[in-house]
């Protein structure tokens, strides 16, 4: 169910005052980002349980020019059965209904995904990127139209990209107004706002853009498209997570977080989980509030679980591809 962020009461002027004095200390954030990777670790049963949990956070993604019906179908099947049944049975986890959180595709492939998932008999949501993904450098009108069409085709989550030009030139009010229009165009669909943090220039800008996106009614804020030169990094995540917590303290609304791009190893996934646990707490460790945008990550997690169960390392052909 879509959360109604802060749609009533506050004016946009009041929101803008929240970000006026923000200053992020970059060296301190980099230091914290370095520490978080070294300070928490999980082993043995804990590692396996955490990795299975990570599977349930994945937005299994394919965003390529050569996507066709057949590889979207394969993706959907993998989303339904992310880990080999025998491996889950060995862990006594086969009845937990472990699937990925969603599948994520380009707007033109939404119909394929909806059809494939229906055929597989499951209700995993379909997420679609939109608004001129990945650069967002198209006119507002077609960007809004893209959202409406994707929703019509059956996407229940829309990953929009923001207009980086507005951030870099400091037009926060205009950015707020644009995201408000995205919000309206989504209707009942979830709005995930991609900040493309690799292109925003500074951590202070990232904090401000996060706040604006949440004020304008986003259900999730997401780090990157996966197409920028720099994608999901820990320093950026720390700044965004602190913005989410500040927004929760100010309004009582919990907004979700989605890192995407470059998260490929099971080990990375564990750090991301502990980062959420440390910065926001256990209540954010659920698919309604945390997602990982990834494609090859799932395979590495499955390999690690294979290793835990059998004591051997699997080759890729032993595990079904996505």
């Amino acid at each position: 169910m879509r959360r109604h962020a802060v749609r009533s009461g506050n004016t946009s002027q009041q929101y803008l005052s929240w970000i006026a004095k923000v200053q992020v200390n970059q060296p301190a954030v980099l230091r914290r980002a370095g520490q978080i990777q070294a300070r928490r670790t999980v082993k043995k049963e804990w590692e396996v349980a955490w990795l299975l949990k990570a599977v349930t956070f994945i937005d299994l993604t394919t965003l390529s020019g050569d996507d066709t019906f057949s590889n979207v179908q394969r993706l959907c099947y993998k989303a339904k059965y992310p880990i080999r049944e025998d491996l889950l049975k060995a862990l006594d986890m086969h009845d937990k209904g472990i699937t990925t959180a969603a599948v994520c595709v380009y707007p033109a492939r939404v119909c394929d995904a909806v059809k494939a998932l229906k055929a597989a008999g499951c209700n995993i949501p379909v997420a679609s990127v939109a608004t001129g993904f990945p650069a967002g450098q198209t006119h507002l009108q077609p960007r809004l139209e893209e959202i409406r069409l994707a929703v019509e085709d059956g996407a229940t989550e829309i990953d929009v990209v923001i207009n980086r030009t507005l951030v870099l030139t400091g037009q926060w009010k205009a950015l707020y107004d644009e995201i408000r229009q995205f919000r309206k165009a989504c209707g009942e669909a979830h709005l995930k706002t991609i900040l493309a943090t690799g292109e925003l220039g500074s951590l202070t800008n990232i904090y401000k853009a996060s706040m604006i996106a949440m004020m304008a009614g986003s259900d999730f804020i997401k780090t990157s498209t996966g197409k920028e030169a720099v994608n999901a990094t820990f320093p950026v995540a720390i700044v965004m997570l602190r913005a989410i917590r500040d927004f929760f303290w100010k309004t009582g609304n919990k907004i979700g977080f989605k890192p995407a791009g470059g998260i490929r190893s099971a080990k990375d996934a564990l750090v991301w989980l502990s980062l959420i646990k440390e910065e926001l707490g256990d209540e954010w460790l659920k698919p309604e509030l945390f997602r990982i945008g990834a494609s090859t990550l799932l395979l590495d997690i499955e390999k690690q679980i294979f290793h835990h169960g059998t004591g051997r390392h699997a080759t890729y052909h032993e595990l079904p591809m996505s």
Partner: protein
Amino acid sequence: MAETRAGPQVREIFNTMEYGPVPESDACALAWLDTQNRQLGHYVDGKWLKPGQRKTVPCLDPITGDSLAVCFEAQAEDVVAAVEAAQTAFTDWSSQAGAQRAQHLTRLAKAIQKHQKLLWTLESLATGRAVREVRDRDMPLAQQLLCYHAGQAYAQEKALAGWEPVGVVGLILPPTFTFLEMMRRIAPALAVGCTVVALVPPACPTPLLLAQLAGELGAFPGILNVVSGPAPLRSALASHPAVQKVAFYGAVEEGRALRRTCTGTELSLALGAESLLLLTETADLDSAVEGVVDAAWSDRSPGGVRLLIQESVWDEAVRRLQARMTRLRVGRGLDGAVDMGTRGAAAIAQAESYVHQAQKQDPPSPLSHPSSVPRYGCFVKGRFQAPGGQNFRPIQDLSGTLHGYVAEGTAKDVQDAVEAAHQAAPSWASQSPEARAALLWALAAALEHRESVLTSCLERQGKGPKAAQEEVKQSLERLREWRTPQALGRTLQATGLRGPVLQLQEPLGVLAIVCPDEWPLLAFVTLLATALTYGNSLVMVPSEDYPLPALEVCQEVSDLFPAGLVNVLTGSHDHVTRCLALHQDAQALWYFGSAQGSQFVEWASAGHLKSVWVNRGAPRAWDQETQGAGPEFRLRASRTKILWLPMGD
């Protein structure tokens, strides 16, 4: 397979998403303890010393309470044996070339690297500190530290020409200390050629292991000796005549007691270990809170942290701090994912007593100051005033001819002078070094006009005309040599901290200086110039026998310098020195006089531990560059402040 395991199953963890244990093996530490038959003595002169008939203390795992080993408590004779070993080793070690010592220290760093797993495991096991702290911070930094000081030793003949190692250094460590704190004190002492006797509390195995590693290098076995014994042995070490310098690190009260018992030995104190953190409204609060957490709850320093938060961000900062504290993980030290080792019931009770004490405390009452009526005859607040006791003393030359009367300074004059100096201090300290140097330059120019007066003044004291002229000329040079700003020791360094590090020399505050009797003009001017250059404000006591040249200088000082910046008190050195040493609001005291007076100054300064510099009765050649100027003055006249300048966004 899963059903045979104890502990929670994957299913359960999947729901709770708890952290699990990440145990590190303690096998290597236990194996090392086994090599000692689980009995730890002392490590002296490259050998284990396990004297019989000593009290034993169990070394316990602070978390489980398991017994790890038993330790023999040292007695005074064991300390003496260690000091003697260090004394013997000193002859050989100090006569080595710097390059030789550098090589030996590098070998010790290598030995630490080779055995680092044993070192961190043992340290974490015996102290309960989080293994991550010891492994990732103490061990690499200890090696870096040794390599750094090896570099210093290598360059020593050039950089510290004319300096001599003092001899045997006694290191006294408190019940809670870190491996790194210990290395910080051992490495520089060894580098310059001193040898070390460390007195550690009983049941601390890591220093013993370190000493063993150093001893097993073969050459120079006696340079590092470790004795474990109780606090009463401290004075036995500190007052041993062969111990030239004592380094103590620990609680304020213990430092005070030590200062009182070992006057006559040079003592360097690092007390309280309480750092002050200021959190202002311009800060990135979350990052600042991370900094506070790192400083206060990371098993790094045994000291506390005093945190001052600007009122406008109080609520925001405290809320963040509370939220962050709920995420701290406490557990067994040898667990790779805890932030702090578990603290015992005693520590908890102590913390609660502090909280209780703070809650009961009334707001501090304002300090009462005796009212001051400025009507004395000393040079205070920029003019000559009648002294508090209305007493004057005659000044005569060697033949008995009377040259004048000077004020007999009293406790009240001292109080006035210190107060005046405090008033002048802030604006003087905030002047740029160049501006301060320019004023000294102007003073030199003004004194040039008085050259004949000053010369005849010195001649009347019994100096030959040539020597008198030379002293005046040299005094003027001393005022001018601070013109070059690079002499002020400001440096900018690039480090790995993301941002340059600026090293500044900060003023000490109000500095009291008791000048020597000899060189009545030169010593006075040299000390005045050095202290003023570094931004201190002064209470000076010129030569007791012949203060007239200094008072001549005051005539010019009153025209040029802000009132109260330089105050000059005359009279009995012993009396004025006593008042200054006992004055708690003078930040530092330099004393050039008798050996007895030096001892008194050290003893009396223990009250608030002001920094002191005394000459122990040794005369100084003020007309020589090495003793009358040089880096020693710079180090004494200022404190070093390091500013890290983080940048980027």
